[in-house]
């Protein structure tokens, strides 16, 4: 492949999953729609310089995550001590710290958690993207969540 696909095909292939991710992070409605638009506009600006054959879905998820965080920061300047103690991702999606700590996980952990919790894929579907098997991916997600929980407690103890 000498160039990446036409951007229209990128929107067609990934538009729905990016919107699902934005909606999971920001709730349905204008915030998720803004995050989607900002994501694809930023992606369009940068697209000509994206390396040919790059993992476009992973690239879009990274951009969407940043756009979602921008909107969360603008809307909810949540103080640290208001974060809940128990960590269950879908309930945490309104909280920046969890999104930030996702970035500290291994690539596999981050992807499994993102695909399962943010994009809504059942574990059985994820090996198609990442290899492995549903049981090993479920373990990777559990390890990742445990690691995030650890970080969260550390942060609390330090404060």
């Amino acid at each position, binding site marked *: 492949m000498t160039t990446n696909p036409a951007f229209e095909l990128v929107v067609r292939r990934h538009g729905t999953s990016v*919107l699902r991710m934005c909606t999971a992070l920001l709730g349905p409605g204008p915030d998720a*729609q803004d995050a989607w638009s900002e994501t694809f506009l930023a992606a369009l*600006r940068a697209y000509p310089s994206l390396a040919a054959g790059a993992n476009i879905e992973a690239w879009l998820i990274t951009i969407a995550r940043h756009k979602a965080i921008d909107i969360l920061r603008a809307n909810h300047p949540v103080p640290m001590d208001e974060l809940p103690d128990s960590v269950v991702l879908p309930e945490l999606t309104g909280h920046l710290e969890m999104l930030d700590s996702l970035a500290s996980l291994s690539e596999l952990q981050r992807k499994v958690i993102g695909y399962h919790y943010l994009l809504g894929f059942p574990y059985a579907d994820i090996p198609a993207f990442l290899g492995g098997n549903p049981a090993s991916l479920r373990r990777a997600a559990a390890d990742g969540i445990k690691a995030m929980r650890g970080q969260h407690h550390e942060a609390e103890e330090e404060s």
Partner: protein
Amino acid sequence: MSELAMHEMDVLRSQLAERAAAEGLIDVSYRLVDSPVGQLMLAATERGIVRVAFTAEDFDAVLGTLAQKVGVRVLHRAAPLDAAAAQLDEYFAHSRTGFELSLDHRLSSGYRLEVQLALPKIGYGHTVSYKEMAALTGRPAAVRAVGTACATNPLPILVPCHRVLRSDGSLGGYLGGLEAKKVLLDLEHDPGTRGD
């Protein structure tokens, strides 16, 4: 996907295209139009219409070629192609015999481009042979090259390669299929009686 979600996605995509256009971020805009020769895909750059494609060519493959040869920022946006769509409608309704559109010929070069630039000299309703077309471009021996130039015309219908036939009067080839070529020739030979 639910109907509501599909509607939401359509709205988001068209808003994206408008914002992208406002920021000058689109290399190629495209839209689809219906016609008597099947669905057509029209694509334009800021210079003009750059591609007309027939359904048989596989529109996604054509978008891929445009991404490779013109730029990867290809988006669906109808507005830049409204004039072309309207003129094609008029052409198929027998109320137009020539097109007044800016064309972007960047997908062709060399002798092919020379032939394609000369094709509009063949008037509506007229035909020439590949041989005559070769002579018309001052290269009477280049009959095969004329055939190639017609077969690779990126702007069919607008640039009338369908008006070039074999010396024996048979149709020769056509990117959109022989049936499409026949429809266009019949339309032009029989103006006003096919307006159905």
